[in-house]
């Protein structure tokens, strides 16, 4: 893949854009002489970050959207954004620590935690879906 690295005097700054590498299979390296103007360097970096930021943000925003909709599959019973109604016997998920939630879902899934229905639902979830769901509720503020 294209590299924009242009050696000048052997000492470079690298700006690696990991998100973009993942998303678009491109690899950018912005190499600049230490002797170049600090202002110019900042300007180039800012411009790169801005254009790259838009593309990376777009994918990040899409992923956020998909993850939020995936987590919403729990909301029918566990409430919108994991907030159940007052006095609900079905627990709220909002703000639940991620490691706890992953353990509980897997305990339902492998039968070590008894359940009325959750052992059947959780067997339909992949590890990736469990991760997505647990991340979402852990990150949602009470």
């Amino acid at each position, binding site marked *: 893949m294209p590299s924009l690295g242009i050696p000048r005097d052997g000492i470079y700054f690298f700006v690696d854009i990991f998100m973009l590498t993942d998303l678009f299979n491109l690899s950018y390296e912005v190499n600049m002489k230490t002797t170049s103007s600090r202002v110019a360097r900042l300007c180039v970096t800012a411009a790169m970050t801005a254009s790259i930021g*838009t593309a990376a*943000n*777009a994918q990040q*925003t*899409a992923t*956020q*959207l*998909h993850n*939020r*909709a*995936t987590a*919403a*599959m729990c*909301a*029918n*019973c*566990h*409430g*919108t954004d994991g907030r*159940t*109604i007052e006095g*609900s*016997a*079905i627990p709220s998920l909002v703000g639940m620590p991620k490691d706890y939630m992953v353990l509980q879902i897997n305990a339902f899934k492998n039968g070590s935690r008894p359940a*009325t*229905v959750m052992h*059947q*639902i*959780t*067997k*339909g*979830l992949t590890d990736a*879906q469990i991760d997505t769901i647990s991340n979402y509720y852990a990150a949602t*503020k009470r």
Partner: protein
Amino acid sequence: MKRRSFVQASMALGSLGTLGSMVGCTSVGRVPEKARVVVIGGGYGGATAAKYVRMLSNYKIDVTMIEPNGEFVSCPISNLVIGGSKTMADITTPYDKLSGKHGVNIVRDYVVSIDAAKKTVTLASGPSIRYDKLIMSPGIDLMFNTVEGLKEANASGQILQAWKAGPETLALRKQLESMDNGGVYAITIPEAPYRCPPGPYERASQVAHYFKQHKPKSKVLILDANQDVTSKGPLFKKFWADNYKGILEYMPQHKVMAVDAKTNTLKFDVQNDVKANVLNVLPAMRAGGIAVQSNLANVNARWCGVHYQTFESTQAKDIHVIGDSILLAPLMPKSGHMANSHAKVTASAIVAQLSDMPVNPSPFLSNTCYSFLNDKMVVHVASVHQYDDKDKTYKTVPGSGGVSSVPNELEGIYAWNWAQNIWADTLM
């Protein structure tokens, strides 16, 4: 590009919890010339879709929902009103949070026609609304004409369906209350698929429970066009044998062809006539009227084919159909929970499409359906449906899903809490 950036920037802000713009930005009941998203129907599918398009776009995509009823009346739990352990107030939720909290513009009206080319819907009151995306969740249409004499007998209030919860729910309860001890209640069930597979068996159980308490000489007859109980069969039959022996009788392979309102008699294709004091006839069903009229019901002229990844109609671009109106993927029930799940996948897809973002490549749906066997004991069926990109359909995940091992009171508590939480998730 401008629009996309705007929506994305807004969504980024929203993810930080900035929802300031949502309050007071809409008026209720206004008929706009244009809405980015128009939703037809305010049931489990439509109301959820309206709310989640708003939420998932961080309140940047405007939504107008068209619904003729002033309040949401739930079909799930409505059998308990018929059985006498819940009231109409218990199953009724106002739409005010959907408008006030979520900024959905609700127009109380019917849609009489759709122009898929011009992308407009026309209301019964006259005006048209343009849309970028249309979500249709019109529920079911009861095919009264498939049973001779039923249309008139239903219109007169004599033979009720009460399958669309509302005034008929209460009217059926009143018919049972005024029936003499020793009378007969008969419910007929159409061939599957129909809305809420276990619903008729739950209703029969509720009526039997009421009779057992208050009118012990009375009888419940279930006249089923199907070969056997279509959902949770062994659980229902065991409970009936243990608790409603001598009260409830189940008769499969009874396909009702006609009703005689003068003598309150049911006529079948093969079997003998059945006379009863209270008749509750559920005719065959198809997609909601507006979907059929608009030629979206392209499967046997009954159900709407959709692309399952986005629920976009296979018949018309930018029209998405969800809920009971669609042609089901294998093992998918027509249920309120399922409609709520369809709505979220669709809302996410529409927000992505209107923002030039990719659609979720692997959505999944879940369903949990509880049935009350008396006022406390409950059984469930649950399933998980994963989208399969190769076959373009949903498939149940092997090893997932199932039913209750036995009827139990704990699930009675969960069932009522399920109802309250899904009403809140749909409407509040």
